[in-house]
């Protein structure tokens, strides 16, 4: 029955199910400019909000004078903390268990902080009125360096004065937030003390920003007649927003409807709850009119969630032969003025404890200290699962540094330390259970494809030519092997504000055999409407083209935790498969009834149930759907619907092997990427074309971060690069051709074996680009230099090594 006869193959192809490079159904509207984004919403009587923001990074707010602004024709209201205080909305809880000012309550803690919210009849008047609000500040000493902050007498968070314990344990200093420890410190130190070789390296993973093309925004509309609040917004987790909005406002949850329309990229930036949402809701409640707030590009870069900003010091111990025996990692994490990191509650440093990487490291210890500074709050997972880019960058740099110390080839060093195929499921020293992997196969395939040995030979020749004065370019070979940890996550240890991180899918099959499925996630460009339909097509035998996928409306979709951390396929995708199986189980009973045989005598065959051994006796899913609605079937309810809430038993662990070949102009610091090869193993591949698109996008953002994208502050706490002139957003011009490849190691615990892929290329790409730059200078004694590797920093590296005569 299972062999694919041509006839079966054709029926299977018609479904466009798993493995089909089906064209994205979303693209027709996006490519024609027919998407519907928050800022496209226009409603009768809609008002516009805009923020007065602090020009200072740390200052007392002495007074706010609204008179001139209120006098401007068209201004409806100007809200300050004083106005929000009676509603207890001048502060809001953060996802990290801290609280954050909605509007400046006596002081400001970062440049760009929200001080007052102007509401006006149109967007232009709102912007004019912002200029008319007079705020008197008294400047305070500015702390932009977390190490200084931990030593300083200056108290950033006066509201926490005297609190020696925070939501994540003891606080060591008034600017300290938490210490998060994982692993065995004593055992790790013992290994360090007795190891053949120990290398220590400090590295800074600079602050950057997800910078989605569409900035954050919302429209809040309070209907005073029926008491219902509708909130459209750029939310990566609409259901959680509804729950939080209900808890904060006291409006019962059934009276709140949150809708995420089309979203123009999120990359973690749209997970958090921002003051703009709260202010818009309050303004709508006060005025009884819809209120729109959409931040501009500078506001987005300055004030809504940043990513990274981790100061990491590693120690890695190994035998003379290169077998790693222990790893020690100490992180000082700059969280800015409020701890608004978007991590599962019990993980204040996200999954940083995946920092043992793809290697079999027997003992390890990780300590992360979160610190307040005068920088914007955030700390989101920019195109990665929680802090996984930091972890993978850390270990992939430590591997390179160890290879340098041992005078070994770093590809070989990786190979001898990989977790072996037969060790899965693998218990890591820092507490994770890796589900499946075959690292050696992937690595060998990658190195063979790029002719690694040939590249090293060419590189050696280039170094020799450089030393002879025949060339001024050097060649870097960047390697990285990464293991992601995605699909958060099991409810037993993963929650956000108390909500377990399950996800959901609800399916309705219509009488004529088409269907609608709704999920608790929300696409921001990932193509959910395409891929989820493919999962269902294979599960229930209805063509993907006949299945509508809907997400993002909390009144219609089942509760879910949203889309970030590559969790949609691992969690909601699993829920879709499980809901599909429930449909199939009922369909089997209907088919058996129609075919007048016992339930066990029919079996599923692509798009139908057939009587076992009698393939010409069958009922298609279309027949079955119709029967579900027009026949009285004894013992069965009419209709064909199912819902599944899926609590994943474990995370999934996608992995990959990347190689980058780069030529570097030593005199100008300009890198030229000659080749980039990316092998991804994301388990079962649902839509290879979408996977390829995701890999291209993730690599592009990895290139950005590694080669120039940053949010930098001067000593006064001014953001130095809050426009796209300085903030590096690569275009087709800067991006090289990417070669993609794959192996397939399914997840053993996921219903269809899929692991998630949206973020892998970013996680693996950043260290790969960085390693390529650094590798180019290895022959001249470079051990480590920090990203971003923009022209002047690469030039500086060459200059420091004495390469400019």
């Amino acid at each position, binding site marked *: 029955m299972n062999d694919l006869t041509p006839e079966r193959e054709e029926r299977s192809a018609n479904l466009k199910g798993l493995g089909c490079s089906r064209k994205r159904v979303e693209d027709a509207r996006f490519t024609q400019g027919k998407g519907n984004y928050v800022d496209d919403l226009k409603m009768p009587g809609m008002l516009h909000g*805009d923020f007065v923001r602090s020009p200072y990074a740390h200052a007392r707010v002495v007074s706010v004078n609204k008179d001139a602004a209120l006098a401007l024709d068209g201004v409806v209201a100007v809200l300050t903390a004083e106005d929000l205080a009676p509603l207890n909305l001048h502060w809001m809880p953060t996802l990290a268990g801290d609280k954050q000012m909605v509007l400046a309550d006596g002081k400001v803690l970062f440049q760009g902080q929200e001080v007052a919210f102007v509401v006006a009849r149109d*967007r*232009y008047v*709102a*912007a*004019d009125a912002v*200029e008319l609000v007079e705020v008197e500040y008294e400047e305070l000493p500015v702390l932009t360096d977390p190490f200084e902050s931990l030593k300083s007498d200056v108290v950033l968070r006066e509201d926490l004065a005297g609190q020696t314990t925070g939501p994540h344990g003891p606080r060591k200093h008034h600017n300290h937030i938490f210490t998060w420890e994982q692993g065995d410190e004593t055992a790790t130190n013992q290994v360090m003390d007795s190891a053949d070789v120990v290398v220590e390296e400090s590295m800074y993973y600079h602050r950057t920003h997800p910078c989605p093309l569409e900035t954050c925004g919302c429209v809040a509309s309070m209907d005073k007649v029926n008491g219902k609040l509708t909130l459209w917004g750029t939310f990566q987790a609409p259901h959680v927003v509804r729950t939080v909005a209900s808890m904060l406002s006291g409006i019962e949850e059934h009276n709140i409807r949150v809708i995420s329309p089309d979203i123009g990229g999120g990359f973690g930036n749209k997970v958090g709850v921002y003051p703009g949402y709260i202010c818009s809701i309050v303004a709508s409640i006060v005025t009884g009119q819809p209120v729109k707030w959409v931040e*501009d*590009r*500078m506001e987005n870069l300055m004030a809504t969630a940043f990513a990274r900003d981790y100061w990491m010091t590693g120690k890695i111990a190994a035998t003379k032969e290169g077998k790693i025996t222990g790893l020690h990692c100490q992180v000082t994490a700059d969280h800015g003025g409020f701890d608004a990191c978007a991590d599962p509650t019990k993980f204040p440093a996200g999954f940083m404890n995946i920092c043992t990487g793809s290697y079999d490291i027997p003992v390890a210890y990780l300590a992360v200290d979160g610190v307040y500074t005068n920088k914007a709050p955030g700390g989101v997972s920019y195109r990665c699962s929680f802090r996984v880019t930091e972890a993978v960058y850390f270990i992939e740099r430590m591997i390179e540094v160890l290879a340098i110390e041992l005078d070994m080839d770093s590809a070989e060093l990786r190979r001898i330390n990989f977790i072996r195929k037969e060790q899965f499921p693998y218990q890591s020293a820092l507490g994770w259970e890796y589900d499946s992997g075959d690292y050696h196969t992937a690595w060998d395939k990658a190195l063979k494809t790029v002719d690694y040995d040939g590249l090293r030979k060419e590189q050696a020749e280039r170094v020799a030519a450089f030393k002879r004065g025949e060339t001024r370019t050097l060649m870097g070979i960047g390697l990285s092997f990464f293991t992601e940890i995605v699909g958060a996550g099991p409810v037993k240890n993963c929650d956000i504000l108390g909500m377990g991180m399950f996800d959901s899918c609800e399916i309705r099959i219509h009488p004529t055999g088409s269907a609608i499925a709704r999920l608790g996630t929300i696409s921001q460009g990932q193509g959910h409407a395409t891929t989820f339909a493919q999962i269902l097509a294979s599960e229930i035998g209805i063509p993907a083209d006949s299945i509508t996928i809907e997400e993002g409306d909390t009144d219609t979709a089942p509760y879910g935790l949203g889309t970030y951390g590559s969790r949609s396929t691992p969690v909601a995708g699993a829920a879709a498969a499980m809901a599909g199986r429930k449909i199939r189980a009922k369909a089997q009973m209907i088919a058996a009834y129609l075919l007048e045989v016992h339930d066990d005598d029919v079996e599923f065959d692509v798009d139908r149930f057939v009587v076992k051994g009698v393939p010409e006796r069958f009922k298609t899913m279309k027949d079955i759907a119709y029967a579900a609605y027009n026949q009285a079937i004894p013992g069965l309810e009419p209709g064909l619907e199912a819902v599944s809430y899926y609590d994943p038993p474990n995370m999934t662990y996608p992995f990959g092997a990347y190689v980058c070949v780069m030529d570097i102009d030593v*005199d*100008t*610091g*300009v890198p030229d990427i000659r080749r980039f090869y990316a092998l991804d193993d994301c388990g079962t591949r649902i839509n290879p074309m979408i996977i390829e698109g995701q890999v291209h996008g993730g690599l592009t953002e990895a290139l950005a971060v590694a080669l*120039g994208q940053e949010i*930098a502050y001067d000593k006064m706490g001014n953001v*130095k*690069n809050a426009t796209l*002139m*300085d903030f*590096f957003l*690569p*275009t087709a*011009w*800067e991006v090289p051709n990417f070669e993609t490849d794959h192996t397939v190691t399914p997840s053993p615990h996921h219903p269809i074996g899929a692991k998630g892929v949206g973020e892998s290329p970013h996680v693996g790409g950043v260290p790969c680009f960085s390693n390529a730059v650094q590798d180019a200078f290895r022959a001249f004694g470079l051990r480590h230099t920090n990203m971003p590797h*923009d*022209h*002047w920093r690469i*030039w*500086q590296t060459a*200059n420091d090594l004495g390469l*400019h005569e």
Partner: protein
Amino acid sequence: MIPAAFDYYRPKDVEGVLALLQEHGDDARVMAGGHSLIPMMKFRMAEVPHLIDLQDIAALRGITIDGDTITIGAMVSQHELINHDGLSAAAPILRETALQIADPQVRYMGTVGGNIANGDPGNDMPGLMQCLDAQIELLGPEGSRVVAARDYFEAAYMTDREDDEILISVSFAVPAGGYAYEKQKRKIGDYATAAAAVQITKVGGKVATASIAMTNLSDVPVWSLGAADALVGTACEAGALKAAVAAMLGDIDPTEDNRGPVAFKRHVAGIILTRAITRAWDRA
């Protein structure tokens, strides 16, 4: 990024423009392609209550090549510079430069006149015009006058042009010999980290004349007579290149910004100039 309110005018001729400038004084400003001015208005760094659009003024358009003289109207776009066959043949350095300005979208809008009048040290046309010894025609209430590009730029965003004058055109002699415009930038759409415009003529295997100007390495474009002189009479061998670079480094005065510190910019300026001279010499 919402500009303050402004009144919008679209006169049909230069007289109309002059009249509006007279009437509103400091409160009025002309707009060419708008790709420097509109961003400044959106940042509210420029407040322009009366905005005078030059798009409808035919007299400011067109490229003419009349014998030995090339004249480019102020409203000629960077896109037109790239696609004008006659100009590309007569003065290929314009095309080479324009292709390194921003991206196609910006080049459709950005004009030669706006790029020069703006007085932004990051703009590429000013250095090029100095290299070509262009003459800038201005028209004001007192009539028209001509200023040499080498005398035009006073400081960042400050030029010899009076507020009530409009830039009409630039003209220069058809350049002879080899040329190069070399520019280092961080990404597409970025202003130069360092850029060099070079024209060289060759007689008997030696440099007969040279002209060199640098972009974004001071608060004004830098025409370096010393650098050019260092090349004259040489065959652009290593020693001559070094001398030219040394002379140029004496004339520039870069400041630190997000593109990098001063030492880096000075080093890159030397490399970029060396490459520009080498390419121009090869083409001479």
